[in-house]
């Protein structure tokens, strides 16, 4: 099994002093898969990614990347990885094209080949017209696309993307998603972290939800919604809400599978949203607004990782 998995982990642990960032996780990522780590800040996603990227040694547990040992074969593994870090670390002293050609040299790609690949990749991420320009004036979305292109310069077997669209505006995000989707179609194995549910739903075949260094759920986006949420969610807002939502929640008890009072609204988790709304009215309650929607990964995520704000 370890031989077939691109990433194989059992009981993987990362500690920084007394702090346990990753607390015994198991992973199996198959070739061609798009695999996601979903979780709030501090869940241990980036620490896990750094161990997979062979720049951080596991404290304990088993880890094999591309069938090799990251401690002993780090150089050989990294030669076949593409890494897009959370914060862009493009080289401001070099032009857009040189950022790719220079990076290719670290992988031992010949000068001529590096130039060919750089031009192809700039085409792919739609930055050809900026090839000779500096990095600094590029927008956030352009920089991120360039970083993704840089991660592809060694034609990697496995691409690691740490929060690929954090901080980008909606248009830029969609463009990045579209490019990543094309990579996925080409059969490139993608591993990404995100705290955007829509990103996970768009890109990931399978994902794990991490919280406090542990994996709290695993599956396809659809199966996670099925297992940890209901088909539909009813959002109720009451005119005198805010302070009294907890009291309303008590009155709504028993409708659907679960009632979740938030400060501004009450969520009803039910497989049949319309039926749940009918029951609300039968109980003589008159919410100011009613919204029936499909359940999303966000519902799963908030249910699993709680609603406490983590910074």
């Amino acid at each position, binding site marked *: 099994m370890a031989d077939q998995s691109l990433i194989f982990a059992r009981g993987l642990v990362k500690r920084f002093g007394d702090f346990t960032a990753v607390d015994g996780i198991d992973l199996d990522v198959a070739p061609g898969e798009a695999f996601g780590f979903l979780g709030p800040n501090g869940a241990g996603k980036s620490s896990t990614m750094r161990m997979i990227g062979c720049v951080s040694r596991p404290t304990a547990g088993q880890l094999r990347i591309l069938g090799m040992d990251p401690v002993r074969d780090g*150089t050989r593994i990294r030669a076949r990885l593409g890494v897009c*870090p959370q914060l862009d670390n493009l080289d401001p002293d*070099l032009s857009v094209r*040189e950022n790719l050609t220079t990076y290719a*040299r670290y992988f*031992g790609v010949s000068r001529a080949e590096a130039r060919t690949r750089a031009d192809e990749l700039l085409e792919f991420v739609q930055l050809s017209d900026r090839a000779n320009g500096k990095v600094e004036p590029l927008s956030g979305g352009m920089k991120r696309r360039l970083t993704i292109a*840089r991660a592809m310069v060694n034609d990697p077997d496995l691409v690691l993307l740490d929060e690929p669209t954090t901080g980008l505006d909606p248009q830029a995000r969609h463009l990045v998603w579209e490019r990543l989707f094309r990579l996925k179609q080409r059969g490139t194995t993608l591993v990404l972290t995100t705290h955007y549910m829509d990103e996970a739903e768009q890109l990931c075949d399978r994902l794990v939800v991490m919280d406090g260094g542990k994996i709290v759920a695993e599956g396809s986006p659809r199966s996670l919604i099925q297992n940890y949420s209901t088909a539909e969610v009813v959002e109720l807002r009451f005119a005198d809400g805010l302070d009294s939502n907890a009291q309303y929640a008590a009155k709504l008890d028993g409708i659907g599978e679960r009632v979740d009072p938030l400060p501004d609204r009450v969520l009803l988790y039910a497989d049949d949203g319309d039926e749940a709304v009918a029951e609300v009215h039968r109980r003589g309650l008159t919410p100011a607004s009613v919204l029936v929607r499909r359940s999303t990964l966000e519902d799963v995520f908030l249910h699993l990782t709680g609603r406490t704000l983590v910074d």
Partner: protein
Amino acid sequence: MMTTLVAARLSLSPGRVGAVINRNVGALRSGPSYWIVLISGFFEPLLYLLSIGVGVGALVGDLSVDGHTMSYAAFVAPAMLAVSAMSGALAETTFNFFFKLKYMKTYEAVLATPVRPFEIAVGELVWAVVRGSVYTVIFLGFMVALGLTTVAGAIAAFPATVLIGLAFGAVGMWVSTLMRGWQDFDLLGTGQFAMFLFSGTFSPVHDYPVGVEILIQLTPLYHAVELVRSLCTGIVGPGILVNIAYLAVLVVGGLWLASRRVEKMLCV
């Protein structure tokens, strides 16, 4: 196991070291800012040579060192050459290295590739010495032109300046990894200036009290000056073996410590 780990840490791929150097060549070509730094670093020792060596030298007259008589300018010039080799390499492995390490995150990007911390250290050091050698070659040209050394002396001194560049560059790189912020560079500058003044640069160290003399003999620039001065003046004794050994230890030790620190800082 330990030996294989050490061997793995120290094993080098020339291609990857070359790629680290290649990045700096690219940066050099990309704009004039780098050239300004490069040129400014060259003039300092030359100005000292002209003002103190030649100017003050006119007042001092000839100097007798270990029974050999030479002009004051011929005494000071090799020291300025050593200083030039030192500051050329240091400028690269301190300011530039620190900036890339702490602010530009250059090495974080590089370490995601097959390149190892030791290969980064070696690549940056080689580049620093290439840069420093531009200074020293021009400086040696001036020395020959001013009659302060012979062509043979200059040819003999050049490899010594490379060794000096490697030694100071390696130690400087290690020191940069310990820097907390830019203010720490003031301390480094002060240390560099103190060595510049007292390492037998402007007066023979025998003129100091014995305690001070011994203290000076423990510092690196003293050995650099002694080595280069021997070769430039042609007064070569067995003492240069000590100078060479001292500097060689700095090269190896500095590189080792610098790459370990980079690994500790970035590979956690």
